[in-house]
C-alpha cells in the first residue's frame, strides 16, 4: 500500500512573527521556514508503516513556492521515497489545497493519506477533512494511534473529553495529532541520500483546478497586548491581591 503525505512549508514554530506596519499581512522576509510540525509527525507515521512492512512506498507532496522543495527534502531525509512539488506562488486556501491533493491522489492511488491536523501558520485545521470529503473517503482526525488491518484501520483520536477509537475503511484520510509519535531527526547520510531522491515538479495552474481564494483578507493586525503585571513575594500577598484587587477568589 502506498502512503501519501502532504507537507507544508511554514514559518518555524520558534519564530515570533511580526505584522507588517501597514496591516497588509505578516512579514515573512528573512524569516526561518520549516516543515509544519504536524506534517513531520505525518511523515514519521508513514515511514514507520513502511519500516513495519505495512506500506510499500511513501510519497511526500507539497503545494507552494519553489522553495517548498526544501520542505520535501526534509521529508525525503526522514525516509519518504519520492516527492511531488505542485508549484504556486499564490495563496492557496485549504479547499484549493484539498482539490489539488485530490488530483494527486487520483493519479497516485494511495491506500492512506496522512495529513497534519493543522498548519501552524493559518491554524485552519481543514485540509484533511476537506480532502476526505472530496475523495468520498472516511476520515479519522486528530490521531494519536493508527493500527492498520485488512482494508481498514483502527484510529484512536484525541477529542475534547479524552480519546475516541474508530475504525475506518481504507482508503482513508488520517490527520495527525501531537501524541502520535516523536519524529526522528534525519541523519547526515540520510540527508545526503535525500538529495538524490526524485522530486516531480508540476505547476499548480496546469492541473485545471480552480484555486482562486474564497476569502478576502481585509487586514491583518497585531493582537491586543497584555502588559506584565507585578511580582508578589509571598503566597499571602498573592491571595490578598486576588481577593481585594482582582476580586476573583
Amino acid at each position, binding site marked *: 500500500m502506498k502512503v501519501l503525505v502532504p507537507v507544508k512549508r511554514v514559518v518555524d514554530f520558534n519564530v515570533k512573527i511580526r505584522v507588517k506596519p501597514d496591516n497588509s499581512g505578516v512579514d515573512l522576509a528573512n524569516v526561518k521556514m520549516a516543515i509544519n510540525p504536524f506534517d513531520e509527525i505525518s511523515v514519521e507515521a508513514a515511514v514507520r508503516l513502511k519500516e513495519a512492512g505495512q506500506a510499500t512506498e511513501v510519497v511526500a507532496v507539497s503545494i507552494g513556492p519553489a522553495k517548498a522543495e526544501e520542505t520535501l527534502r526534509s521529508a525525503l531525509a526522514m525516509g519518504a521515497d519520492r516527492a511531488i512539488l505542485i508549484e504556486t506562488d499564490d495563496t492557496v486556501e485549504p479547499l484549493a489545497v484539498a482539490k489539488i491533493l485530490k488530483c494527486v491522489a487520483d493519479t497516485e492511488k494511495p491506500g492512506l493519506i496522512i495529513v497534519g491536523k493543522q498548519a*501552524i501558520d493559518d491554524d485552519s485545521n481543514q485540509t484533511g477533512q476537506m*480532502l476526505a470529503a*472530496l475523495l468520498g473517503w472516511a476520515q479519522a482526525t486528530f490521531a494519536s494511534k493508527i493500527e492498520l488491518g485488512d482494508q481498514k484501520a483502527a484510529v484512536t483520536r484525541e*477529542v*475534547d473529553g479524552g480519546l475516541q477509537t474508530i475504525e475506518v475503511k481504507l482508503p482513508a484520510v488520517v490527520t495527525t495529532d501531537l501524541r502520535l509519535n516523536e519524529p526522528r531527526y534525519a541523519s547526515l547520510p540520510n540527508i545526503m541520500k535525500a538529495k538524490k531522491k526524485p522530486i516531480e515538479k508540476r505547476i499548480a495552474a496546469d492541473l485545471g483546478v480552480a484555486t482562486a481564494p474564497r476569502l478576502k483578507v481585509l487586514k491583518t493586525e497585531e493582537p491586543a497586548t497584555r502588559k506584565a503585571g507585578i511580582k508578589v513575594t509571598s503566597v499571602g500577598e498573592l*491571595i490578598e491581591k486576588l481577593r481585594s484587587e482582582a476580586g476573583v477568589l
Partner: protein
Amino acid sequence: MAILLLAEHDNRTLSDQTARALTAAREIGSEIHVLVAGKDANAAAGEAAKLAGVSKVLLADSDALANNLAEPLAALIVSIAGGYDTIIAAATASAKNVMPRVAALLDVAQVSEIIAVVSPDTFKRPIYAGNAIQTVQTTDAKKVITVRAAAFQPSDAGGSVAIEAVQAAADPGLSSFVKDAISSSDRPELTSAKIVISGGRALGSSEKFKEVILPVAEKLGAAVGASRAAVDAGYAPNDWQVGQTGKVVAPQLYIACGISGAIQHLAGMKDSKFIVAINKDADAPIFQVADYGLVADLFDVLPEFEKAL
C-alpha cells in the same frame, strides 16, 4: 436566509460552548435553527430549545449519529443545507472534525475559529498562534464558520421554541465507532470554568501533578489544564492541553504553575481576565503576560496556597 447552528452535546446535556457560538450567530442573523444530531438526544434538544434567540430546534435521531462520526453527520448537515446561508458551530473537537467536510461537500471555504463578527460576511480570526488577527470577508454563497467559544459570552436561557424531528441522511458506512475513553470528573469543564489551574513540565510525574495541582483545583472549584510538555510526558491527559493546538480558555483566573510561557501555550490562555504565574525562573516568558507573578518553587508554594484558601 436562516442560520444553522450545530449543537455540541453528549445526548443528555448541551455544551456551554453552543450557547457561546449562539451569541456569535445572533450577531450574524436572527433566524437561528439549532441542529441536535445524536441518539436519544431529546434532553439536549430541550436545553437548546430554551436558549434565547433560537427560532427552532431540529432533532435528528439515529444510531449512526450516536458518536459524532464525521461522514453521517456531514451527510445530514449537507442534506438540509439548502435552507441556510450560514452553517456555524463552536470549534469543539467534533465540529473541527465535521465542519470542513461539510464545507468541501458544499464547495465553500470554511472560516475557522472566529473571535469577532464584524458584519454578517466579515469576521476576525487569529492566525500564527494568535500573534496576528486577520479580518476576512467571505465571497461564497454559503458560509461555514467555526467559533472560538472563549471569545463570546454564552447566550442566556429565556426562550422556549418547538423541537422538530429531521430525518438522518443515509450513513455512507465508511467508519464505525469502536470505543471511548472519556475522562469523567466532578470538576468544571476546562472551556467554561471560571478558574483554571494548569501545570507544566515542572510537575515531573502524573503522581506529583495529582498531588500538587488537584487539591488546589478542588478548593477553588477550578478546572485543570496542562502544557503540551506535561501532556506529552504523560503527567496529564490529552484533553487538558491548553494552547494553540489544544483548548483555548479565557477564565476569570488562570493559574500557570511550572509553565514557561511558550507562544503555543500563550495562544490558549492569554485572553484570561487575570493570570497568575508561579515559576522559579524569574525570566520565564510567562511573567510577561501575568498580572501576578510569584517567583518560587511550586512544590513549596502550592501546598501553602491550598492551605491558605
